[in-house]
């Protein structure tokens, strides 16, 4: 009986011990599997695998035919683990010529105790291959006894860099991205959110800091940014760039711009500025050069502004193309004398003649037929003092003093194109309205967008605003043809075989440094064919030295660019006859006599 009791007590202790141990195990099991399950899973995952980001390329900026102006290309950042580099001097000697760096600079970057150090940013894949080959050749040349001198410890970090294949061709419009790949100027900046891609994610098994081959798993696919197709034609842009660059150099001017526009659609075919910059190399470019003068710089248009005064008077029925005005070479208004560019005897000029010889006094006399508020309202309708809606970054709306603040000399000043300021884009838009039968269409440089799958979505058609009637526009076009004739101020703009219309501008230029008039703005804005306009081209040259006439400086540039546009777009001459309006009183009288004779017969 005693032995049986002893056995029972031992069995009890054993059972208790088993139960205790099993209980502890069960408790730990529940703790691991249920209570701390998530944190253990995360720990296991991070110990084994790492999640990293995949860079996404930005969308491209292309011309209307798909030629790339800006694109993202593969680039490699060369990084080193300084602790692994056995011989920094030898390393630098090999790497420096390949990376186009000095030996001293490379040596500085590879010497030290840092496990990660950037040696050079955004090298081409070809450069990286050369670098690898050079070190491989060096390591193989070492004997077995020099195995410790082998050079390694440099790694590639793949990404993308922005490349501008056209260089300076369209720098001021395209802009550039900063070192972080974010748009810093131009369309790169204003369309940054659209162009930026979406980074992807992938996981990989981590083996002592290196990715184990085959362990990579894509978690989120990298998405390329939206590609933006511009309305710019690369070839027209090149001709315009060459022409304005040559003109600026020849006239020792401060700057110049050329804009080529389709007046019906508002699409800009070319947008050239000089001087400009190369977006591939912006380190030494001044902020002033990075501006887009076509939309950011304002100037007083001068005589090109006279078309608005005459448009208003024609539209209001105050004049006809043959109304005769007595035009002296100077006129006193509100105790101030206004003068024509050249002294001349008092003439009898029609509005057509006033435009042809660009008489300031004549324009003032036409303007005097309009009230201040009427003249002001037409300027507003033509878009002066209002953003054109081009969507270009930093676009100025120009300067137009409110009519309530006009003094006695403001109206006559405004009548011949001074006393207010416009951008080159606004000035082009004014002539585009006349070319487009009186409807002003807001300019645009965006033809459409393509998403990462390549689906192209064209831009919506631009809205148009009627400024003047089609009859008034047709009359003005005919009047403007006289400007390009031998009797006008811009025979240099004429293109043999084609009917061309346009207007010169030679305005006093406001110098920001002294806030005074100093130098001139020479311009010519025209369109062709005059009787069936297809394209409007504006040429603006700021601060030319010596000869500063708009016709002399702007006319040849217009002719060169327009000739190319007409040829490349296969636009043949209209083969219609130009019957000019009479320019002066004598011609009006002659025309009347002919008409009377015809009536008698």
């Amino acid at each position, binding site marked *: 009986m005693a032995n049986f009791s002893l056995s029972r007590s031992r069995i009890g202790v054993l059972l208790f011990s088993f139960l205790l141990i099993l209980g502890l195990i069960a408790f730990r099991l529940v703790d691991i599997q249920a209570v701390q399950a998530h944190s253990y899973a995360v720990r296991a995952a991070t110990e084994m695998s790492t999640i990293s980001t995949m860079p996404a390329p930005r969308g491209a900026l292309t011309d209307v035919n798909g030629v*790339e102006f800006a694109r993202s*290309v*593969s680039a490699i950042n060369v990084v080193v683990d300084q602790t692994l580099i056995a011989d920094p001097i030898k390393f630098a000697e090999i790497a420096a010529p390949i990376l186009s760096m000095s030996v001293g600079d490379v040596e500085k970057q590879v010497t030290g105790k840092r496990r990660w150090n950037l040696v050079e940013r955004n090298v*081409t*894949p*070809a450069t990286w*291959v050369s670098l690898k080959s050079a070190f491989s050749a060096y390591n193989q040349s070492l004997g077995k006894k020099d195995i410790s001198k082998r050079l390694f410890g440099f790694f590639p970090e*793949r990404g993308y860099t922005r*490349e501008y*294949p*056209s260089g300076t061709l369209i720098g001021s419009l395209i802009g550039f991205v900063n070192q972080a790949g974010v748009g810093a100027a131009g369309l790169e900046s204003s369309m940054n959110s659209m162009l930026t891609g979406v980074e992807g994610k992938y996981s990989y098994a981590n083996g002592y800091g290196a990715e184990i*081959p*085959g*362990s990579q798993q894509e978690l989120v696919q990298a998405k390329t940014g939206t590609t933006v197709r511009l309305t710019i034609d*690369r*070839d027209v842009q*090149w*001709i315009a760039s060459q022409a304005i660059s040559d003109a600026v150099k020849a006239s020792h001017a401060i700057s110049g711009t050329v804009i080529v526009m389709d007046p019906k659609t508002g699409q800009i075919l070319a947008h050239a500025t000089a001087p400009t910059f190369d977006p591939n190399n912006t380190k030494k470019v001044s902020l002033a050069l990075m501006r887009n003068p076509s939309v950011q710089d304002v100037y007083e248009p001068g005589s090109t502004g006279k078309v608005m005064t005459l448009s208003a008077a024609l539209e209001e029925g105050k004049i006809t193309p043959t109304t005769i005005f007595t035009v002296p070479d100077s006129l006193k208004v509100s105790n101030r004398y206004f003068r024509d560019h050249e002294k001349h005897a008092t003439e009898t000029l029609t509005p057509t003649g006033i435009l042809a010889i660009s008489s300031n006094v004549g324009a003032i006399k036409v303007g005097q037929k309009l009230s201040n508020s009427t003249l002001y309202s037409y300027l507003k309708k033509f878009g002066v003092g209002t953003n054109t809606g081009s969507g270009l970054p930093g676009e100025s709306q120009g300067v137009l003093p409110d009519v309530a603040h006009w003094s006695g000399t403001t109206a006559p000043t405004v009548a011949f194109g001074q006393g207010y300021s416009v951008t080159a884009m606004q000035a082009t838009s004014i002539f585009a309205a006349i070319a487009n039968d009186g409807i002003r269409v807001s300019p645009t440089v965006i033809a459409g967008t393509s998403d990462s799958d390549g689906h192209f979505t064209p831009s919506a058609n631009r809205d148009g605003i009627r400024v003047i009637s089609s009859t008034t526009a047709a009359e003005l076009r005919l009047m403007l043809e006289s400007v390009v004739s031998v009797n006008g101020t811009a025979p240099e703009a004429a*293109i*043999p*075989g*084609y009917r061309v219309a346009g207007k010169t501008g030679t305005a006093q230029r406001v110098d920001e440094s002294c806030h005074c008039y100093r130098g001139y703005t020479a311009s010519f804005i025209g369109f062709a064919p005059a009787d069936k306009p297809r394209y409007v081209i504006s040429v603006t040259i700021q601060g030319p030295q010596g000869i500063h006439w708009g016709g002399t400086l702007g006319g040849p540039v217009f*002719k060169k660019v327009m*000739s190319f546009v*007409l*040829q490349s777009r296969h636009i*043949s*001459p209209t*083969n219609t006859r130009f019957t000019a309006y009479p320019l002066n009183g004598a011609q009006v009288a002659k025309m009347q006599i002919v008409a009377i004779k015809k009536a008698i017969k």
Partner: protein
Amino acid sequence: MAIPVLAPVNARSKKIVTGKTSRAALRLVPDLSSRERADRKVFVIFLSVIGGIGLLGLLAINTMLAQDAFELAHLQTQATALSDQREAIMRQIDQASSPEELAIRAIAAGMVPSQSPRFLTLNTPQANSVTLKG
């Protein structure tokens, strides 16, 4: 709870069952001589071979999978290199087809930039003539 009436029947039944059980329990098992026993060494070798083949199979499958992973990595590297080459070639094409390059080549070939547009208009076939415009 026994039923006295059934006692003789139960006793007879018990005797029959006991007799049969005894016969079954005493049945002879085959007498195995030492020669007829299974060879233990052969059995061990057989198991070792099976185990070895299994292990080698696993090793082969694992190696093949690893080989595929290496090949995948190699092909990805090759694809990246080809993509890089394509970019470099595209760059050369862009440069060669740029307007400035074409202009230089055209001038070198003796061509002259057109000063103003000209158009040839073919007149009626009967007239067999052309008119130069511009």
